[in-house]
């Protein structure tokens, strides 16, 4: 790294640097879990049930005798996936819809307003539970369920921001230049309107992991034997008194990752605010 880039790095908000560091590390772990995990996360050991943390098993073993550390590490793969996939579709779809709604305005906006009302008035978790019940449990269906609701929030944010942006002169300049609406919306307005949505996206990814864990608690999230933090915590709650390590370590992982996303979001917001 050159001196230039180091000094540039130093100028970035601390929150951003810490958040990015946590998440980069998380992504590396998520990509190569086997390089870090000492055991097969699925291997059961009926002799070593509920073994407390030791040199052999730094985070102990669970009620199937599986190594908790290895499961926490392998869960990175699934949980980072949840964070990404549960929010990616809402982000993309919501952004497109929001951009169009915000740009077109008028009746489209009124109709959109009612749809938003209906979706946010609907009890979110109930809707997700119902959709997962319809489609069957599992991650993909969980993504779909979250996506059906989640896009609305992005669309709202983007629509509001595009509305602000389209009043600015550069939007009119584009029209005066004779550019097409599509070009103005997607080439000009959207790149400028998208930042709050990106900041929200960061928070949303952290929330997605939490939601995944809540659904895991209800048995609707990641399916066994896959390791996922929420499921691990839910599995471990019966052992809080006798084998705290089953739930505490995945808990740490959730908090740490959530922290990473929030810090990154805060930092990002700070950078973007600073630029204005």
């Amino acid at each position: 790294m050159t001196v230039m880039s180091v000094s540039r790095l130093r100028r970035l908000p601390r929150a951003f640097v810490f958040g990015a560091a946590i998440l980069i590390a998380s992504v590396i772990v998520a990509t190569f879990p086997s390089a870090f995990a000492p055991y097969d996360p699925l291997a059961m050991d009926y002799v070593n049930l509920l073994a407390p943390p030791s040199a052999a098993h730094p985070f102990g073993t669970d009620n199937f005798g599986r190594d908790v550390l290895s499961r926490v590490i392998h869960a990175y793969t699934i949980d980072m996936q949840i964070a990404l996939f549960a929010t990616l579709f809402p982000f993309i779809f919501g952004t497109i819809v929001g951009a169009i709604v915000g740009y077109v305005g008028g009746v489209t906006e009124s109709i959109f307003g009612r749809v938003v009302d209906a979706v946010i008035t609907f009890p979110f978790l109930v809707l997700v539970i119902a959709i997962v019940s319809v489609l069957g449990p599992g991650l993909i269906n969980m993504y779909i369920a979250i996506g059906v609701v989640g896009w609305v929030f992005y669309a709202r944010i983007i629509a509001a921001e595009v509305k602000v942006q389209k009043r600015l002169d550069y939007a009119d300049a584009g029209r005066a230049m004779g550019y097409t609406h599509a070009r103005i919306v997607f080439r000009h307005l959207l790149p400028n309107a998208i930042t709050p949505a990106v900041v929200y996206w960061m928070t949303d990814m952290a929330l997605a992991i939490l939601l995944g864990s809540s659904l895991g608690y209800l048995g609707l999230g990641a399916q066994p034997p896959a390791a996922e933090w929420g499921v691990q915590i839910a599995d471990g709650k019966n052992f809080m008194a006798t084998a705290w390590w089953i739930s505490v370590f995945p808990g740490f992982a959730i908090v740490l990752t959530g922290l990473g996303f929030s810090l990154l979001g805060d930092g990002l917001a700070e950078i973007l605010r600073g630029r204005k």
Partner: protein
Amino acid sequence: MTRLSLIATTAAVLLSTTSLVQAQERGGVMTYGRYADSMFLDPVLNDANVDIWILSNMYDTLLLPTDDGQSVQAGLATDWNVSDDGLTVTLTMRDGIMFSDGTPITTEDVIWSLDRARNPDNGIWNFLLAAVSEVTAPDDKTIEIKLAQPDPAILPALSVFNAAIMPKAAFEAMPGETDLEKATAFAEKPVGSGPFVFDSWERGSTLKLVKNEHYWADGADGQKLPYLDGVTFEVIPDDATRILRVQSGELDGAELIPFARVKELQDDPNINMELFPSTRVADIIINVRPELDGEPNPLSDVKVRQAMNYAANKDAIIQVVTFGVGTPTSSFMSSTTPLHTGDGPVFPYDLEKAKQLMSESGYPDGFTASILTLAGNQDELGIATALQQMWSQIGITLEIQQVDNATRTEQYRNGTFDMRAGAWTNDIADPNQITSYFAYSPTIDALHSGWKSEEVDKLFEESQSELDTDKRAEQYARIQEVFNQEGPTVLLYETPYPVALQDNVKGFNQIPLGNNIFRETYLEKE
């Protein structure tokens, strides 16, 4: 320690009233934690264990199941007799019995109640009294039940909740046109003749019963039953919270303790961790139809099923899932079921034999199959997770599908599932109920598995009117032999009912059929 003084005062008042009650010999109000609330307190039209298991505290039956759940004892009837041809049951009513509102129990109430219970349009339990053709009262002390054909299970059937005696006049005075409407109104504040009386109900939270002053039975000490002044059921869906409430002393007892916690509570000096014998068996139900989704079904191969049975390490599963509390099943019916045969696991863990059987089967290279488990059910999940690991060694890839109850029931009923985790508890002190469901194909296709054995079907039909106990035992022995070896199941384990009680709770019983019996329960004074 800081508390709001207001709260402290409230607590103090509560405490003082409690200690006042405790001063009485064998009195007190027992608070009992349940995992789910009751839904509908009508003996005939209800459909779930959450109702069944507590109904007998409010509604009395002519006969009562014994504490071991294997036979019957006197209830509202003091004497009973089955004629030699098995076609008439004569019962003598107890003297001076009354409903909790003080009105006497008449033969008219009994006839009406039994007629309602056996009406095929009412509820789903009427089959238990299907053999009955007529109920009459030759005099005001005697009930005569005529049967269309002999039924060896008729006496146990009279001890089942749906045969409870209800006050005809009070029921019919309820608003509404249909039986369902009247029952709905009646069940809001039911009147029966059990040891306790309905007091109040906050749905989803608390159901309060108080002592029935008119209850007929006396305890072994000669005192009138019940000893308790009341029972309060509290609904606490989360297992961990339910246990915490026992540990904090807020509950006197709690049901369905997760097996994972049994050891810990056994070690707790303040808590009496009871394991009541039950008729509960856990198994895997296998769809054995030759084709599924237009594909040949490997599970239809009996060798495959036997291989799966041998490859399932029951001891390991018992360790992992029940934490050593369970025992391997020796038959599809629990060892507490009358006419049970067998001793030790039917298929002792033997991986070599399993591999051998797989290689002899039509699927030596294995296959992929799915298993349905109930979302949120840790036991089923544990079983499936363990089996997933175990069966991978004989080439079977198991996919776990967690689904909610309704989804599972639909797939089950439609016969579109591969496998499902299952558990069974008898409702009647007779083997005919479980066998009818498990092995006898006309009822529900042998657990909707599509399994059919001409021999078993024939044996079962014969046993249904076989009055000779020995002969019936032989028939059942053969049924168990066939089913255990070739049946559509992987037999796993049986478990007791784990109930955590405070040390001072005495005389509580949960019989093998699941009924919670509070009539002799009391809270011992410290």
